[in-house]
């Protein structure tokens, strides 16, 4: 490095080399960055210069100022928080019940025989089809929101967990029993940690389903939340606000995904290497 610096004739060329090095290293993130910039600039250009009507598709700057307005009066933050709370609450409930039950079902043929027909009936039902019944039973309060997320995700959680338990090498269960583990200890010490990587990748998919559930529920009957905001904005013909709401969903899901990834790394330390 030092030698090269001495050997390089002009300072300018040396700097250029360094920049080129950084560019080569960060090539793909850079391409992604340029891509998103071109996307928004193109959008801005097409809408401001009238190629596409602003009524049909508002420009990014308009959406941005709408977002700033909603952020200033606090509605956007409140919507994100309430929707996030509903999603995570319902999802946590479904996982809390689904993971232990799934492990039990995965290890006991008897229990599987008991629950299989019931799951088979409930599983094909889309979350949306639970909305009318849940409204009749629970109204449009918070309990109904959580229950929709729960109903929409519970069977998926269960199936992912059962599948995950099948992937464990039976020799590990034998080894554990040979070392004196009881049935319950095998479940806690072998099946749960052994299935955990697959369970977590399953739960990631389920989390996306949970968002679908809550947004549709909020569109049908709610007074706050991202789904409500979008639906309400549509009624007023406020296209920028519709798009702010959609972007809000996007960014929230992204943020939660990143958080989930961090939790995953802590839960599965043996796969870090």
């Amino acid at each position, binding site marked *: 490095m030092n030698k090269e610096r001495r050997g390089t004739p002009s300072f300018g060329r040396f700097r250029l080399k360094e920049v080129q090095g950084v560019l080569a290293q960060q090539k793909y993130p850079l391409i992604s960055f340029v891509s998103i910039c071109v996307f928004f600039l193109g959008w801005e250009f097409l809408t401001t210069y009238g190629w596409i009507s602003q009524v049909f598709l508002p420009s990014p700057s308009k959406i941005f100022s709408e977002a700033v307005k909603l952020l200033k009066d606090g509605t956007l933050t409140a919507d994100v928080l309430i929707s996030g709370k509903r999603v995570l609450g319902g999802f946590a409930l479904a996982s809390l019940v689904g993971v232990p039950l799934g492990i039990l079902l995965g290890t006991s043929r008897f229990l599987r025989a008991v629950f299989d027909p019931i799951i088979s009936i409930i599983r094909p039902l889309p979350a949306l089809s639970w909305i009318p019944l849940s409204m009749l039973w629970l109204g449009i309060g918070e309990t109904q929101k959580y229950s929709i997320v729960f109903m929409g995700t519970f069977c998926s959680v269960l199936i992912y967990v059962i599948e995950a338990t099948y992937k464990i*090498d039976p*020799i*590990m269960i*034998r*080894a*554990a*029993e*040979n*070392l*004196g*583990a*009881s049935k319950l*200890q095998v479940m806690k*010490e*072998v099946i749960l*940690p*052994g299935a*955990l990587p697959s369970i977590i990748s399953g739960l990631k998919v389920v989390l996306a389903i949970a968002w679908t559930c809550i947004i549709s529920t909020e569109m049908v009957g709610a007074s706050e939340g991202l789904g409500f905001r979008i639906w309400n904005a549509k009624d007023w013909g406020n296209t920028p606000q519709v798009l702010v709401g959609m972007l809000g969903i996007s960014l929230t899901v992204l943020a939660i995904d990143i958080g989930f990834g961090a939790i995953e790394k802590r839960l*599965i*330390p*043996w796969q870090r*290497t």
Partner: protein
Amino acid sequence: MAEQTTILSIQDVSKTFDDRTVCVEAVENFSLEIYEGELVCIVGSSGCGKSTLLNMLAGFTQPTAGKLLLHNEEIVKVEPRCGMIFQAYALFPWKTVRENIEFGLKMKRTPSAARRKVSDTYIKMVGLEGFEDSYPSQLSGGMRQRVALARVLANDPEILLMDEPFAALDAMTRQVMQEELVRIQKESKKTVVFVTHNIEEAVILSDRIAIMSARPGRLKQLLINPLPKPRDAAVRQSAEFAQLKEQIWNVVREEVLKGMR
């Protein structure tokens, strides 16, 4: 061996696997007494039922006929007093070396301070100091099998059942592990039932050698290994060693040919 107390007794054991379409006789009328503190090698070609026999001794499966006795009591369920070492190690990938070794004690709810003391002893015995906090995926095959050995020893079984434990290792690592096993057995005074298809390995390790026939596995021949202990590298070069190998090979060869027909 002056006093010979029977610890394990295999009495006229047969095992048939019947899954409705095919019926396979894996082991047939097999009898063998195993004495306290000895190392018995069970030798046979692949598919002769050696592993089936070991699985029955561990209590993973039950015989179709006959009895397996540990201290004169029939083995009817998974038996922690017969610690199993698997060819594929069967370590828990989500546990560190130390946690793997402490597994049996944890199942018995031994307090963690006492657990640590025991794991320290066995980590040292198998030479894994410095790797206590590694995960199995970070270790080589030989090191993984050392962890498996320490894990079983820490659980203090009376008998070690070893199912071709070194078959997946390269020749050099295997030789080192064989020497280690001899040393560890001397230190711990455990009875060892060692299944292998490697004749040289059987000759190096064993006090007695049980040769199994081709399927269905019967006891073809039982030999006392006359080679003096300890068996260092020089023994591998000796005429007696070659002779014993030859003698076993002649019996095994016949059975391999039968099995291929």
